[in-house]
């Protein structure tokens, strides 16, 4: 038993010289996570190194890159000025459609941006107020550090403090799927997982051109990208990478507005 204590310094040694096992760390947006995992899988299969994906939200990803804990941050919003001021560089890989989702039995099929804003700010607290059958509105939103929440705020308006908070796009989907009176917002890849109805906003469905709730999706680095991060970014911008992005429902960067 005492000999086990001799293994302790060995463990530390192992940790120190096994940095090759780290690979590229990508951390951040849970909205982007499904896409990031698919890109990482394809990158490794095509000869690239090992890439690990971590969630936590866009701002968590930014923090991870700033602290050197991750090589790439996945963010689903624009960088704030103070973030850019610290040397962060955003590489936009595509555009995601922020999808407003309700339970499949909800009679609502379309909504204007103004009404959506009233719903989510809490001013309209009953479905009656937006033309539906009477009943309380249960808002489901992301937490404060989420890129999706920030994008929603800049595209639609603030979220009421009485909204239910879930820590990931997938969790919002679960919450809305289980409650006929709930409404939430998720990224398009998550909305496509099924079980929900996506609302048309300002007369446009998410699969139609001109859908208003569009936000950039980026990988951020501290300073110019180097090494494995640069190689991965090159793969993402390649035709193979862009095809994968398209398959997930996003618009790859450079494909037009």
């Amino acid at each position: 038993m005492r000999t086990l204590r001799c293994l302790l310094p060995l463990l530390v040694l192992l940790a120190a010289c096994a940095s090759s096992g780290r690979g590229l760390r990508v951390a951040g947006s849970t909205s982007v996570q499904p896409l990031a995992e698919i890109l990482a899988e394809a990158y490794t299969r095509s000869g690239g190194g090992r890439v690990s994906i971590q969630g936590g939200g866009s701002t968590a990803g930014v923090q991870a890159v700033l602290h050197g804990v991750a090589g790439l941050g996945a963010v689903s919003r624009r960088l704030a000025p103070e973030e850019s001021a610290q040397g962060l560089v955003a590489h936009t890989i595509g555009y995601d459609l922020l999808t407003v989702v309700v339970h499949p039995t909800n009679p609502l099929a379309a909504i204007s941006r103004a009404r959506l804003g009233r719903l989510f700010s809490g001013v309209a607290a009953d479905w009656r107020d937006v033309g539906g059958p009477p009943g309380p509105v249960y808002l489901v939103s992301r937490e404060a550090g989420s890129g999706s929440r920030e994008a929603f705020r800049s595209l639609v308006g603030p979220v009421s403090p009485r909204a239910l908070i879930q820590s990931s796009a997938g969790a919002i989907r679960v919450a809305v799927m289980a409650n006929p009176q709930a409404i939430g917002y998720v990224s398009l890849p998550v909305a496509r997982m099924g079980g929900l109805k996506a609302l048309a906003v300002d007369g446009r469905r998410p699969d139609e051109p001109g859908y208003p709730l569009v936000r950039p999706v980026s990988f951020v680095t501290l300073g110019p990208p180097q090494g494995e991060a640069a190689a991965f970014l090159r793969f993402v911008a390649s035709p193979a990478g862009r095809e994968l992005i398209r398959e997930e429902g996003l618009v790859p960067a450079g494909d037009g507005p």
Partner: protein
Amino acid sequence: MQSVLQACALAAGAAVLLIAAFVVAEGRPALGAVFGPVWDPEAGAFGVLPMLAGSLAVTAGALALAVPAGIGMALFLTEVAPPALGTAVRPLLQALAGVPSVVYGFVGLTLLVPAIRRGLGGPGFSALAGALVLAVMVLPTIAAVGEDALRALPPTFREGALALGATPWQAVRRVLLPAARSGLVTAVVLGLGRALGETMAVLMVTGNVAAAPRSPLDPVRTLTGNIAMEMGYAVGQHRAALFATGALLLALVMLVNAAARRASR
């Protein structure tokens, strides 16, 4: 050899001091701000009173259910069950205690939350859901410690009461429970400590709304849930506020444990 072992002991003892000092040091810039009534990091408000209310609501609800049930189970094992049944039931309680909290959270999320929404109204994510899940988690602790307390009583207490003409219930109520009081209080306080510190299960079923609950059906956010949700991305004053919350939580739990130790003397 002695010095090696002494070093181990000092390191182990230092661990909790290190953790406490670390949490307090990182939280110091925000220690004043956390005692406000509004939590809105984007607006610079870091008051955790709504989360304190959430934690207390969920914990109080859990204890209201788990204390009678737990002491009842302890009494069942000491007064009612034949020894063979006792040896069968006790491992079951232990198993209930061993089930990881995330499993309780999962079952709560898939079964309890929709059931509350359909049966009682509200969003389903609620203080009630949190209290119910916590009650199941805390019950085995109260039952086990309570049983130890009751078994420690001399058999003459029970025999004497019965000899004086008391019914079994009267013996329990007027003699055994008061005599075992310090041990039972310890059991309750240990359950309280565990409930306050629980994170995952309540995070999954309470809805995480940073506002004090006005009814059991309202969603709430606990102190632990607040830390878990926001830690990944908080910076500056926000981060300090989360550490200050941690310090507050630590102080609460230490207080509760100290009370348990005092009660068991």
